């Protein structure tokens, strides 16, 4: 439809203005802040320095937290993928009559706040909670276990938070596969697992990549779950950053730590995309 370019520009202006002022400028402000000097009695000083980055990447403590955060992120992403793929395969071929029910199962956790879902896990693994009761009843343990405030429960809770983010893109990729490819594979004598390995899996790579990138970025920037379920024992980058910003009011250093996290994220995501690219190119003409 033809309409005057001025009118078109007028429709776009509010959103562009909003995003420029309240998204682009704030990120710019974060970059600027990371080069400022600290000050007493104010969040930041007037002079400029590189010392914040020196400390963020040079201090073994902060570097250790950064690397550990990336490691935990990778672990969470792998586990999420492992649990999500079967669900996505099921969801992609579930009959029309049942699809609403199973979609609702996947989507409802997504729409419930992270805090609520973490709280659910707190109840499940609490000292007198259902998990301990089941283990006691089965005779696997003699006394209730302390399951809160350690790494496994943080990982489980985060995997739970991220499964829907992984399931949805993989399901979409699987639904786009031409069903005649399965018939072709079978008629050429491939067994079920061979078809999975050589047809289904390669063709779902774009969905897997989308899910993996999304979950990894979300996992390393998670804040509530490590704080609530990990307590003081599990220190991840986000809680350190927030502590610098809210706790000690060291805005420039907090900004530099946030920038360090962003830089590492960009590097990790680019590497992953580069590794997956040959596979994507090979299967592109089929999807």
């Amino acid at each position, binding site marked *: 439809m033809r309409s005057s370019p001025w009118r078109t520009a007028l429709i776009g202006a509010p*959103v562009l203005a909003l995003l420029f002022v309240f998204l682009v400028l704030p990120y710019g*402000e974060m970059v600027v802040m990371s080069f400022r000097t600290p000050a007493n009695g104010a969040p930041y000083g007037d002079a400029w320095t590189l010392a914040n980055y020196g400390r963020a990447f040079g201090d073994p403590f902060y570097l250790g937290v950064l690397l550990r955060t990336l490691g935990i992120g990778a672990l969470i992403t792998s586990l999420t993928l492992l649990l999500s793929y079967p669900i996505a395969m099921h969801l992609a071929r579930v009959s029309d009559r049942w699809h609403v029910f199973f979609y609702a199962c996947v989507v409802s956790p997504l729409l419930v706040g992270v805090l609520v879902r973490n709280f659910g896990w707190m109840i499940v693994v609490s000292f007198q909670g259902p998990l301990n009761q089941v283990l006691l009843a089965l005779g696997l343990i003699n006394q209730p276990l302390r399951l809160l405030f350690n790494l496994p429960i943080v990982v489980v809770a985060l995997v739970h938070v991220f499964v829907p983010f992984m399931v949805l893109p993989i399901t979409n990729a699987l639904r786009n596969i031409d069903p005649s490819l399965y018939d072709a594979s079978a008629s050429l004598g491939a067994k079920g697992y061979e078809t999975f390995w050589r047809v289904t899996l390669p063709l779902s790579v774009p969905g897997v990549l989308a899910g993996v990138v999304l979950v990894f970025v979300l996992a390393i920037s998670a804040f509530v779950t490590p704080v609530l379920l990990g307590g003081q024992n599990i220190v991840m980058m986000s809680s350190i950053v927030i502590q610098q910003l809210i706790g000690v009011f060291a805005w420039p250093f907090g900004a530099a730590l946030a920038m360090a996290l962003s830089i590492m994220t960009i590097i990790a995501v680019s590497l992953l995309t580069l590794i997956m690219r040959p596979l994507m190119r090979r299967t592109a003409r089929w999807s």
Partner: protein
Amino acid sequence: MKRPLRYLSGAVLALLYAFLLMPLVVVALASFSGGEVLRFPPEGFSFKWYARFFANESFLSALMLSLRLALVSAVTVSVLATMAALFYRRLPYRWREPFRILVIMPLLLPEILTAIGLLFFLYRVGLGSSAFGLQIGHIVVTLPFAFLSVAAALQQIDSSLEEASASLGAGTFETFRRIVWPLIRPGIFTGALFAFIVSFDMFTMSFLLKPIGGNTLPLAVFDYLKYDFDPMAAAAATLSVGFALLVVLLVEKTVGLRRAF
């Protein structure tokens, strides 16, 4: 597939779905407990924790702030997202993808980074720790959800319908009102629902930008959980589960879950 294998895969799937739903079910059941402590399975059945929740000043004012933020976000973002989606459709082809990425950027970037940037920026322009600043944060983060929803609805419209309308003498506004609007209304509605629920549950942004003396419901629950572990927190949390189920139901009725995600 062979029968034992089918049973095995069925069992694995059942476990996976149980894993997804368990924390939500546990929270909801715990909130109806009749006992004094948070225990599972809950002792007895009662609404007393809901009664206590609604009698609790700090929870109630937090709920009001959360509802207000979510409502204002949903309305503002629906208008903005509809304009953005119409703009997106009229853009020359090579500008479309960059514009789409810009609009969904708040979804792709970690919420914590956007919140930190806004914290600095709002302080710089003199809006630090203000209710307005927090509202802005919620609008920025919920915008992509509404945009994706409206843009998907708009994509379904055959452009020949608009051409037909124009060739019959309808102006731009007339065509929008009589052709485009009725067709994208479900998409706008769905987008507004998503924006509402995302804002209602938003944590990190609210944590960093919260106004002085103002708490949202997730923040109030978080503070409460630091010192108490009783079913009142479960009652507060179950409100969020209830909203989510309501949204799932409404989305399924209007556009269908499969298309919405």
